[in-house]
């Protein structure tokens, strides 16, 4: 099954060209109750390596994972630091629960940096073995600052207790080869490969703002490094800007008590309970084990929520045939463990094996394609008007190995396609690429250009916001139209759900810290399909609770999926919004946290832990200039029908809403008139939602956390208060 074989000569060549810039020995701190209380600090400008203690206050208020990332970054940068300044950091932290082997989804790393695409702080949640192995090697967080002069790798051996920074000039940049090269180099033999995890990016990360990081885990059956992505916000771009080729950790000895929890028996019991639920219910529920998150593709089309042609439409007749569950089962390997960390019985990683590449530098090679996730099949597929599973695999593979986020790539390609079709840009601008919806050859070429640093690929790779600004400035495009159809907020491209018919989800996308990513709140079903949160207060409560609850996964090093992608029997008796919380599973997480740390929190304290970090991140945004309601702008495409075609495609729905919700009779009105009435109504609804949500979150109408709120939640650090004070006194 191994698709990339690294010859001995190649390893020798790599070794012979290495130059050690720094090498040192250390005594790995043993993990105690989920923590080592140590940070590994590396500055690549001067190859400084430090072992830093994490103060008790930081542990108490920031918990771990994303909290640690935000705290370290806050202290490492200046108010005017840009993504490519040397003081920008990449912080990787797994969180206290990460590393237990008994509960699904418990091996995540959180990566934090200043994003090239948003200019503010970004966080990304990623699987693979790196985070837990790094913790077992002695570190709760890895903080990387500075820039190397030439391409380097950082290698941590957690058993021997060694760290080295080495110039690595000949290693491949693209991840599917690099991860194998480094595994071959650092493993003693085949058995030893399972102890290695590699973090890497790819060629396209060097020429775009949407670069990602691949975190590997060794798949013993396929004898290949599988790749999981820290996709959002361009952290891979920062990584390559720092001239990092890879981070490698090696640690042997993972067991059920490696995290040294306070109560391992409790963890075992909760873990076995969930394994059994997955075993008993997954086939009849989400089929995560069979098709992963892509199970949603067909369902989203059924509910008119699947983005088609740059979020214009919500369904397509070819969706089921080209991305439905049955179609996916034919291309995705079945019946093999597919967890990205030990103990993940949900097993959603999924892969297509022996896929023969049709394009690009690796054309003709047979490779393992990780995914496609729902976001990928919707993003690079339906949203670009492409319904072709082979294209999705091809594009997914190249995005991963080139180090590009499939979500942003999909949304920005869709935007370019719509601009092309509306005559905003032409072949002269695209360098000959015919960027029409459905043109998969053009989309693939765009990606290859991004990797080569050529042509329109470089323009598009800067993202929707940069393209919009360029098209307006250079090609006289209608700015208002592009603001409406450019699916970005805070500079980040939207993830792949049509939110037009769910006001709560419009907020779930725009009223966020890092930008429009569904990991804060996914309320479409509660709101639109089940109508469980009808009032503004209901929606605001959901837009408080769910973002806080979901933030908690990022503090702990957990995956969201086992929370509600399998539901226990107890949920069948719960009605209304409470059912969406999956109370039994929330209790599982409280129990896991207490069992790992020996603390004694409850469900309320859990939300409070998140609220501190969430508000800290909000203030971080303010510090970096993302302030006020403009920072939470929602493009109108995410709120309602921008164009005549969109209105007409769902005319009955919009007319009915006008009559029933707005109280205006659509009879006899032109489409333009009806569009204007609909728009005015929907935008006022969004504004009212925003006001209600801000209030519920303890913020002013301008979205500034009040001093009183910061005090109440225990996030009243002097440096935090200093940032908000000038805005509050206005």
């Amino acid at each position, binding site marked *: 099954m191994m698709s990339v074989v690294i010859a001995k000569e190649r390893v020798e060549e790599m070794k012979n060209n290495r130059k050690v810039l720094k090498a040192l020995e250390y005594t790995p701190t043993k993990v105690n109750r989920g923590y080592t209380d140590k940070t590994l600090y590396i500055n690549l400008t001067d190859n400084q390596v430090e072992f830093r203690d994490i103060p008790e206050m930081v542990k108490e208020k920031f918990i771990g994972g994303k909290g640690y990332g935000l705290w370290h970054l806050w202290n490492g940068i200046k108010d005017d630091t840009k993504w490519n300044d040397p003081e920008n950091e990449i912080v990787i932290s797994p969180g206290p629960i990460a590393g237990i082997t008994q509960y699904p989804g418990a091996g995540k790393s959180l990566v934090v940096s200043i994003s090239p695409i948003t200019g503010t702080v970004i966080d990304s949640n990623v699987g693979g073995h790196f985070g837990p192995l790094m913790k077992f090697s002695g570190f709760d967080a890895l903080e990387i600052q500075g820039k190397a002069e030439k391409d380097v790798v950082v290698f941590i051996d957690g058993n021997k207790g060694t760290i080295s920074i080495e110039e690595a000039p000949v290693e491949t940049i693209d991840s599917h080869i690099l991860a194998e090269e480094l595994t071959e180099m650092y493993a003693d033999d085949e058995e030893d490969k399972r102890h290695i995890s590699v973090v890497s990016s790819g060629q396209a990360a060097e020429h775009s703002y949407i670069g990602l990081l691949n975190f590997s885990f060794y798949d013993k059956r396929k004898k290949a490094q599988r790749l999981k992505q820290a996709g959002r916000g361009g952290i891979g771009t920062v990584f390559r800007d720092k001239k990092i080729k890879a981070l490698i950790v090696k640690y042997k000895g993972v067991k059920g008590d490696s995290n040294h929890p306070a109560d391992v028996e409790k963890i075992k019991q909760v*873990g076995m309970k969930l394994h059994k639920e997955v075993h008993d219910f997954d086939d009849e529920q989400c089929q995560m084990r069979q098709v992963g998150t892509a199970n949603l593709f067909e369902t989203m089309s059924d509910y008119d929520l699947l983005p088609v042609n740059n979020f214009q439409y919500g369904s397509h007749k070819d969706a089921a045939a080209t991305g439905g569950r049955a179609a996916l089962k034919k291309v995705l390997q079945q019946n093999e463990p597919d967890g990205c960390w030990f103990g993940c019985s949900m097993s959603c990683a999924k892969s297509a094996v022996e896929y023969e590449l049709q394009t690009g530098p690796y054309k003709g090679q047979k490779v393992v394609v990780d995914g496609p996730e729902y976001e990928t099949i919707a993003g690079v597929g339906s949203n670009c008007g492409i319904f072709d599973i082979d294209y999705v695999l091809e594009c997914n593979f190249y995005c991963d190995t080139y180090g590009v986020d499939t979500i942003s790539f999909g949304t920005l390609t869709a935007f370019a396609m719509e601009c092309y079709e509306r005559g905003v840009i032409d072949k002269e601008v695209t360098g000959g690429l015919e960027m029409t919806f459905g043109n998969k050859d053009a989309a693939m070429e765009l990606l290859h250009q991004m990797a080569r640093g050529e042509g329109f690929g470089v323009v598009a790779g800067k993202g929707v916001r940069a393209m919009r600004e360029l098209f307006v400035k250079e090609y006289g495009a209608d700015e208002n139209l592009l603001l409406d159809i450019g699916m970005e907020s805070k500079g980040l491209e939207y993830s792949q759900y049509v939110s037009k018919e769910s006001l709560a989800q419009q907020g779930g996308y725009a009223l966020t810290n890092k930008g429009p990513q569904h990991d804060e709140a996914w309320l479409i079903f509660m709101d639109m399909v089940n109508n469980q949160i009808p009032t503004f207060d209901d929606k605001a409560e959901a837009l408080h609770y769910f973002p806080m609850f979901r933030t908690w996964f990022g503090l702990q090093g957990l995956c969201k999926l086992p929370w509600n992608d399998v539901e226990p029997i107890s949920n069948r008796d719960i009605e209304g919004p409470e059912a969406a919380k999956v109370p039994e599973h929330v209790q599982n997480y409280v129990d896991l946290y207490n069992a790992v740390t020996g603390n004694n929190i409850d469900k309320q304290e859990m939300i409070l832990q998140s609220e501190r970090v969430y508000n800290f991140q909000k203030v971080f945004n303010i510090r970096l200039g993302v302030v006020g309601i403009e920072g939470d702008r929602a493009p109108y495409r995410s709120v309602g029908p921008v164009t005549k075609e969109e209105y007409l495609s769902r005319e009955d729905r919009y007319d009915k809403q006008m009559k029933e919700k707005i109280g205006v009779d659509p009879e006899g009105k032109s489409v333009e008139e009806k569009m204007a009435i609909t728009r005015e109504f929907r935008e006022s609804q969004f504004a009212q939602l925003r006001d209600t949500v801000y209030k519920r979150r303890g913020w002013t109408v301008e979205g500034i956390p009040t001093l009183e709120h910061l005090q109440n939640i225990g996030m009243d650090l002097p440096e935090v208060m200093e940032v908000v004070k000038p805005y509050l006194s206005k």
Partner: protein
Amino acid sequence: MNMKKLEKYEEKCIECHACEDVCAKTYFKSEDRGKSRIVINEELDEKGQKINVCNQCGECMEVCPELALTRDKKGVVRLDKDKCVECLICVGFCPYLSMRVHKDLLEPFKCIACGLCAKECPTEAIEIVETV
């Protein structure tokens, strides 16, 4: 394929628990029946079993991320404790609830069809069967 397993005849079982005692004693030097790889349920478990013991079906092998569960030459599924990361997926996924755990142990354990319990059973409610 060779198959060696413990066959059960539940109607013959008199719930004397002698099988559990010899199993726990042999493998864990323990009087604690919770450490037996065979379980006698005085009330039927959720699968309707009075005697719960591995039938060597091998479904656990398929879900083990570490390839720590393999079938030996005689067809018996065995756990390699060195490779096991103690994730317990095999416990949750055993269709017969026959992968066992105990609070003193991190790793699971299962019947390896040694037959000692069958020798102890006074009513021949269990026996080793081998097919080639």
